[in-house]
């Protein structure tokens, strides 16, 4: 038992520790004698094979899950990875857009600044790739996170939320602007705080000023700069909201909003068709799918009053009341900001230089003004805008006058450069704020625009408005007339101001004053195209306004401007077709209104404008040419030189045949012979001039040209021969067809003149007097003359001998030319040949004497050997043409003689193909003729 006890004690032996001895190690002691090192799994060993990865082999799922990591660095690197991955494989973006957006947006309110910056970068990247309509479903989420960031308790996050907002504003302004209400409150809260302190609440609500600017000390930037940055974004945001509004067509909004020339395009897209397209194209016209039975939304007829959405009034800025209530909150704040900005300056400035501002203050003020301006434009409709203006005037005119106008023409202050260090720091800060530098000019102009919109329409209280408006007016006038360099935008705003002043003031002298200043600017030499057309459209719009404004109607400056337009147009030449187009449009508008000054000026310039060589009408592109031709209609008088020029324009081929035809028709309409006259419009040209115009257009060549052709001799024209008694000058194919088309039009005009016989008389007199002496005749002219004669000839009239002789010569020469053309037989002369043949045949069949003379001209004895076949061909062609048979039969004797001669002269050679053909044709014709004469007997003869 004892041994047993002893044994047991062995098991639990007490270790005796002794002083001075080392403590023995315990058996179960861990050896801590090793070192550790962290293992960085920067790359995954196992490749994520399901999809593309970053260079660290992380797939998109890994990266997204890492965004929930507690460590800021992990999140940061995950964001970097995301950006890399997405830029490598954009297709991922489409697959994972919803997750991406929700995860990335969630880290905008992250505590770590780097993470936020990276998140903004990723968002910017996504925004660049994804169009707005695909983001739209996720946008509520994004904007919720944005609001969250903007209202965050940490100021750093608030500040970064501005960058986030910037991205959204840049890429999705429309989406952002769709729900403006929440954001607007957020903006307010960024720079101010609500004063709802108990009992005073009610009284303050009545006044609507329960917001006050807040100052927080712990920001990294000064409160002024912070406000500037917020205001900058607010301005951009409002701009987006305004741009989202459907543009209402109206003089004011167009004048201030868009370019003056741009009228608001309708919702309906009109169809523009061409008759030729319409006839040849298979595509049908469907006019009514545009409109249907319901009137369009743009119609001002309302079937029922628009239902006012009850609860939504406060939510959106769609109604004037909502805008007004928002403005009521914002404007006092803006005024405070303004006062603060100006006060901070004047503290270290003497009072006499109170109008000099530091750049910072200036940009703040500029932002204040632009926001005010945008607030005005927020009103959805024209009439609401006016009521809003009135409200502004009522509420704030006093304040505005006191604060804004006190030191009105503001200037910039030369910032002393002695504190280098401070400057450096400041520049860094302003870089963070990223406010663009603002010129004093821009500030002043914006101020003008804001203040002018408050000006009253009628001169009811001129006295009260007088002082500050005069100040503004002087500024505008000086700026324009002293030739200060203005940017396009600034000029646009200035012109908008002038527009508004002119239309609201309704005073003749003031209007003249302002317009004269604009005119001084307009007359400057080196303006850019954009500026020039802006000024042009300003004036032409203003001119179009004259109906309702008597003080504009007789404005001297406008008249002078109008009168100068034709001169400018002719001086401009072909250098700038776009500007010419604008000029022509303005001229046309004024001409249609029968403006005396313009018409006089146009008339004096007409000869230069319509010069066939270097006139505008031939230099400009086709549309402008057409307008120039239309402008002719409005000319009060058309002088002879002008008509000569126009005739040359028509024939020279530098305007298309269709346009030339419409030119001829317009002149026709303005002559007394057209028959279309409504009311009492005096004719523009004398009948004599008109007919001589038609005649010279018909000939197609001026007398000088014809004379030079006569002298030029043989090198260009075909030589004359017995077969072709006139020497024909072959015109190029294009010219021929052009002239042919014009001849058709002239003939039509001549036909409609009235008495055909008189008309023909005039024509043949003209031919007799000017053309019969010619030895060299262009073929186009010859064909044209034959065509005109055959169209105009009445059977009752006999053409006189010399004319007939000339025509018969023309005809024979043309027929000879036809034979040579046929031998060449290129297909492109087809049209020409047909035209010539048609003209000859028609003339020969309508004027029987002509055929006889042609036949008489054929003296076989004079012909040379090689001309005989040609003559034969001519004759057989004539014989083959059935409509001519009766005429030919009337001249059987003559014909027989010619054929006998032919057979005799060609006996020398072997009987050739052409002669056989001819004889066959001849016998056929004669037998046919005799058969028709003698009936059955002829038939028997044939057999």
């Amino acid at each position, binding site marked *: 038992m004892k041994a047993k006890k002893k044994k047991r004690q062995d098991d639990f032996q007490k270790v005796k520790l002794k002083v001075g001895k080392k403590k023995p190690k315990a058996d179960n002691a861990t050896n801590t004698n090793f070192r550790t090192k962290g293992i960085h799994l920067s790359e995954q060993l196992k490749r994520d094979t399901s999809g593309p990865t970053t260079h660290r082999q992380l797939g998109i799922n890994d990266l997204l899950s890492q965004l929930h990591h507690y460590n800021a660095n992990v999140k940061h690197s995950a964001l970097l990875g995301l950006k890399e991955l997405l830029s490598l494989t954009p297709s991922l973006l489409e697959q994972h857009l919803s997750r991406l957006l929700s995860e990335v947006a969630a880290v905008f309110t992250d505590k770590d600044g780097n993470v936020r910056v990276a998140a903004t970068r990723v968002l910017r990247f996504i925004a660049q790739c994804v169009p707005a309509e695909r983001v739209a479903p996720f946008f509520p989420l994004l904007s919720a996170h944005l609001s969250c960031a903007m209202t965050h308790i940490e100021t750093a996050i608030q500040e970064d939320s501005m960058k986030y907002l910037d991205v959204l504003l840049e890429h999705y302004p429309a989406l952002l602007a769709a729900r403006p209400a929440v954001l607007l409150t957020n903006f307010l809260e960024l720079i101010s705080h609500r004063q709802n302190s108990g009992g005073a609440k009610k009284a303050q609500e009545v006044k609507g000023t329960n917001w006050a600017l807040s100052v927080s000390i712990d920001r990294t930037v000064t409160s002024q700069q912070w406000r500037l940055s917020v205001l900058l974004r607010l301005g951009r945001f409002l701009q987006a909201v305004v741009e989202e509004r459907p543009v209402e067509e109206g003089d004011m909004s167009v004048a201030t909003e868009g370019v003056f020339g741009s009228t608001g395009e309708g919702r309906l897209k009109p169809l523009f068709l*061409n*008759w030729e397209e319409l006839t040849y194209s298979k595509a049908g016209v*469907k006019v009514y799918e545009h409109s249907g039975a319901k*009137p*369009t939304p*743009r119609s001002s007829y309302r079937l029922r009053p628009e239902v006012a959405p009850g609860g939504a009034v406060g939510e959106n800025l769609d109604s004037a009341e909502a805008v007004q209530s928002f403005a009521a909150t914002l404007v006092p704040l803006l005024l405070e900001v303004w006062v603060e900005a100006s006060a901070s300056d004047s503290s270290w400035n003497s009072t006499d230089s109170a109008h000099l501002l530091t750049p910072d203050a200036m940009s703040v003020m500029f932002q204040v003004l632009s926001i005010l301006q945008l607030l005005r434009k927020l009103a959805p409709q024209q009439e609401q805008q006016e009521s809003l203006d009135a409200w502004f005037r009522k509420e704030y005119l006093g304040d505005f006058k006191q604060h804004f106008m006190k030191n009105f023409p503001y200037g910039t202050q030369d910032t002393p450069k002695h504190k280098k260090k401070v400057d450096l720091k400041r520049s860094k800060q302003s870089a963070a704020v990223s406010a663009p530098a603002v010129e004093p000019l821009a500030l002043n102009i914006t101020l003008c625009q804001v203040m002018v919109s408050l000006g009253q329409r009628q001169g009811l209280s001129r006295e009260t408005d007088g002082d500050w408006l005069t100040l503004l007016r002087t500024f505008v006038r000086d700026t324009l007339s002293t030739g200060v360099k203005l940017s396009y935008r600034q000029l646009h705003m200035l012109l908008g101001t002038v527009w508004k002043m002119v239309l609201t003031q309704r005073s003749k002298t003031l209007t003249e004053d302002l317009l004269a200043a604009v005119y001084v600017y307009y007359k400057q030499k080196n303006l850019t195209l954009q500026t020039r057309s802006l000024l042009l459209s300003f004036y032409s719009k203003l001119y179009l306004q004259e109906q309702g404004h008597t003080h504009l109607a007789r404005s001297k400056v406008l008249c002078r401007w109008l009168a100068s337009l034709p001169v400018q147009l002719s001086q401009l030449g072909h250098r700038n077709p776009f500007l010419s187009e604008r000029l022509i449009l303005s001229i046309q508008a004024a001409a249609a209104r029968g403006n005396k000054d313009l018409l006089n000026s146009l008339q004096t310039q007409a000869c230069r404008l319509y010069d066939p060589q270097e006139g505008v009408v031939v230099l400009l592109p086709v549309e402008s040419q057409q307008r120039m031709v239309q402008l002719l209609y409005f000319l009060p008088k058309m002088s002879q030189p002008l008509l000569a020029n126009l005739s040359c324009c028509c024939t020279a081929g530098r305007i298309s045949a269709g346009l030339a035809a419409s030119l001829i028709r317009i002149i026709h309409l303005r002559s007394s012979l057209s*028959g*279309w006259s409504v009311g009492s419009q005096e004719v523009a040209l004398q009948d004599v001039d008109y007919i001589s115009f038609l005649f010279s257009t018909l000939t197609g060549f001026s007398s000088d040209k014809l004379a030079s052709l006569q002298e030029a001799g043989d090198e260009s024209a075909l030589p004359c021969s017995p077969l072709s008694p006139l020497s024909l000058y072959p015109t190029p194919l294009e010219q021929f067809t052009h002239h042919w088309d014009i001849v058709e039009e002239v003939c039509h005009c001549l036909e*409609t003149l009235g008495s055909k016989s008189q008309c023909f008389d005039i024509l043949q007199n003209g031919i007799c007097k000017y053309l019969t002496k010619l030895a060299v005749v262009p073929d186009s002219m010859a064909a044209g003359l034959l065509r005109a004669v055959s169209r105009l000839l009445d059977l009752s009239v006999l053409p006189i001998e010399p004319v007939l002789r000339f025509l018969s010569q023309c005809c024979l020469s043309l027929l000879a030319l036809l034979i040579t053309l046929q031998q060449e037989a290129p297909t492109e002369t087809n049209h020409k040949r047909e035209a010539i043949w048609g003209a000859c045949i028609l003339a020969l069949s309508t004027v029987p004497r002509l055929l006889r003379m042609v036949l008489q001209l054929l003296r076989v004895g004079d012909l040379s050997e090689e001309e005989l076949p040609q003559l034969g061909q001519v004759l057989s062609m004539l014989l083959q043409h059935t409509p001519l048979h009766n005429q030919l039969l009337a001249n059987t004797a003559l014909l027989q003689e010619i054929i006998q001669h032919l057979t005799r002269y060609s006996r020398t050679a072997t009987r050739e193909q052409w002669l056989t053909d001819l004889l066959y044709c001849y016998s056929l014709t004669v037998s046919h003729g005799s058969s028709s004469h003698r009936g059955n007997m002829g038939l028997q003869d044939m057999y």
Partner: protein
Amino acid sequence: MAAPLEVILTSDSGSPLWNSTVFDLHSGSSLLSYRGGNSSARTLVVLRGEFLLSAQLGKNVINVWEIQRKDQLQQKILCPGVVTCLMASPNGLFIAAGVAEAVYLWEVCTGKLLSILSRHYQDVTCLKFTDDSSHFVSGGKDNLALVWSLSSVIQLDLNHAPEPRYVLSRHSLPITDLHCGLMGVQARVATASLDQTVKVWELSSGELLLSVLFDVEIMSVTFDPSEYFLFCGGSDGNIFQVSLCSQSLSRDKSFQSDNDGNQVFKGHRNLVTCLSVSMDGTILASGSHDETVRLWDIQSKQSIRCLTHKGPVTNVVIMTAPANMFLPDTRPAVPLPRFSRHLHASEGDVGDAGEVCVRLGRYTQEEEETYLQKAERLNSLMNAVTDKSVYGDGENTKVRVAELEEEVQTLKKINKDLYDFSSQLLTKPT
């Protein structure tokens, strides 16, 4: 001979005997001629089916005939200038005339000159009312067409010059003709111009729907009643037909050699100045400066008939024949008052008459509601018909059938009686 249903009213500027003539649409025979002077273009107007008005060519006078007295002028209305166009509102309450740049508007029942609209810058060339007389459109040589609301024009407020509802300003040369389609304010307006285009506008919004560019100036334009086609008379004598709602049935097209109904009526040799389409849309009448009026079959585009005149044709109108045109003994229900030449002349002359001025302004201003109501009524009517035909209960129809049979019986009996009576009368030896 039964009185014709539709007649053509034409006038020319050269005839020494007649001012205007009435032809039967189908036989082409001349029915009536009105004497005295010549009418100028676009001024021949029938007022209320009782009076014929036309402006004297080159003089500042409007001639008025009673429609059944063809030889005698009822009245001459003196105007301040040469009348360029004249139109009566379809309800017969107003007359509008273009004199130089201004449009003069008279009230027919009193003869008062209601307003002078001088918004055009140059001569007014044409005027048309909508078929509900609520608006009218004026076209001028200043390239503008203006849409006026009649109710706003006749307001008594003198401080405000009336403003047109829309300014149609897309033409670049004078407007030669315009046509206003049916359907009141929802009508479509076609304007033709010397700039070789015809444009179709929507009256309710003032928007351009269609613009067709032709090769020649267009002098006249009209729609057919269903507005399937647009007819445009050119200055070269051709009439162009534009199909506005071509059916794109491909199976038809492959066998069609011609192209889609965009075709040309050929026959006139000079300006086609006036066009008019018959009520059923089968016949087109055109008048031209070649001194003929032609009737065309629209389907086949052939000239059916050619009516020669003595001078350039100035007016051609196809209209329903007024009831008392061919009854020489009738009198107009209400005589025409004298038309005044000056605004508010009545105040000086008959200030003591104590007359009450009644304007239709209110009625026409509330047209929005009436349209809606109309549509609703129409809808309920249609529903009622279908309801009855589809869901009509048997009981009701039986009763109805019985009633109708009874009615037929009575009618038969009456007929029989009538027959007996007349046969008795005829067979009775005298």
